[in-house]
């Protein structure tokens, strides 16, 4: 499997990179673990591949205090941060993101694959988008007309489709870090692709013994990451002191209200994906709840 011919550029500044991706047939290259297999399969054939590997400014993980509200922070993850570097940084308060990143591929893939590439590729069964959607993360894009921010919810629109214009680059992802939030990601691995057959991320807070602001998101289920509104609705206000009952009643009909078509292939049918959903929703939510209860009282 040999890729088609293309030109290659390796800019060393963000401005030069923006110039290089301006032509409509240019594509950015990060870790290459989505793009290079697609080139080999000849499902894409760009004129120029623009390697972002020289943009050190887009690498790294840091905590940034929220403007105005000093009790909360954001985790800022540079788009080119590899999965392995995020796991090494092991920031506290971003458990679902770390769970999802750990689930990606294998050690060799995590050494090359980047957090931004995982999101920008918008593979329907990628893990990291579930965590960013549950966390209500913000994606920062820069293009010829300047910067813009897109919520994780508004970013991916379908199978390998996002709102990113081809001349825009993803620079970083900010993930809110409430000190009393708990989050987790659980998945059923697809037996053939190794990606998620179904993956669920959950994030919630526990205040005065009650679940507040739950956000639950699934990948692998539909072409774009999907919030599980039925789970969120039943979980909001639930009694964290009776976690088993709360989680079970919230997750048994986890797929209710999912309107988008459920994916299927010759190995995992749509019905199977729907049937798997409650189990993985239950795992993610109960772990998130346990983690939130563990952190309750951390806040002054």
């Amino acid at each position: 499997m040999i890729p088609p011919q293309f030109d290659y550029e390796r800019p060393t500044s963000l401005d030069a990179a923006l110039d290089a991706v301006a032509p409509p047939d240019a594509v950015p290259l990060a870790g290459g673990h989505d793009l290079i297999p697609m080139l080999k399969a000849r499902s894409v054939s760009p004129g120029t591949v623009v390697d972002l590997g020289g943009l050190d400014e887009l690498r790294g993980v840091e905590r940034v205090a929220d403007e105005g509200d000093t009790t909360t922070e954001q985790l800022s993850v540079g788009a080119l941060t590899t999965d392995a570097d995020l796991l090494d940084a092991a920031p506290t308060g971003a458990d679902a993101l770390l769970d999802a990143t750990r689930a990606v591929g294998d050690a060799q893939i995590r050494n090359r694959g980047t957090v931004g590439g995982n999101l920008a590729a918008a593979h329907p069964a990628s893990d990291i988008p579930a965590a960013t959607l549950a966390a209500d993360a913000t994606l920062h894009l820069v293009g010829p007309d300047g910067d813009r921010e897109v919520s994780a919810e508004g970013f991916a629109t379908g199978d390998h489709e996002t709102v990113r214009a081809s001349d825009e680059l993803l620079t970083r992802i900010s993930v809110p870090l409430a000190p009393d939030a708990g989050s987790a990601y659980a998945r059923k691995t697809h037996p053939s692709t190794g990606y998620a057959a179904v993956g669920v991320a959950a994030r919630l807070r526990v205040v005065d013994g009650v679940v507040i602001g739950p956000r639950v998101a699934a990948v692998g289920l539909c072409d774009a990451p999907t919030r599980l509104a039925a789970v969120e609705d039943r979980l909001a206000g639930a009694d964290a002191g009776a976690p088993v009952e709360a989680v079970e009643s919230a997750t048994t009909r986890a797929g209710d209200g999912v309107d988008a078509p459920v994916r299927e292939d010759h190995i995992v049918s749509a019905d199977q994906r729907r049937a798997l959903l409650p189990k993985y929703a239950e795992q993610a939510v109960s772990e998130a709840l346990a983690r939130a209860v563990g952190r309750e009282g951390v806040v002054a």
Partner: protein
Amino acid sequence: MSEHEVTVTVDGSAERATVEARRLLVHALREEWGYTQPNVGCESGKCGACTVEMDGDVVKSCCVLAVQADGSEVTTVGGVDGAPEGLAEVDAGDPRATPAGDNDEFGPVQRSFHEEHGLQCGYCTPGMVLRARDLLADIPDPSREEIREGLKGNVCRCTGYENVVDAVEAAAAKLEPIETDGGTAGQADTVDGGAPTGGDD
């Protein structure tokens, strides 16, 4: 189409070539420079036969462009001897330890694969050995489950994995940390499936 001059240090030697942008690192290693230990199995990033170390990290060289590797240091299994990073060989106490003189170009991980019969055709072995070394550098005393999970990106068509896991365990028994540095990535216990279980799917 563009062509690029690349220089890559492979197993300590500076190798140069002019490559098309689309040239994959594994092909440059094998065909331009004659390093045939990294094998080509699936060509799609799944099997790990093409695993090499690039600037200290194990990677699948079928998913890296040769031009991306310009200026880096690549190590194939042919370039490793001795213990993995941060570990030293315990010389006494292991009744199966092979006298170093027998196979002195092999490090303890390679010798363990040999002694435990952790290979049959050997096609996966270069990748298995490199990833096993990397895993042991991270988790010096892994459980069998951690070994299976850790070798998830390395597929073997022959052994059924049992002897591979034995080999990594035996290698761990031969090694001890030089200094403790704490940070291991740990396990994803909420993620089901995906690790090799020895079935022939």
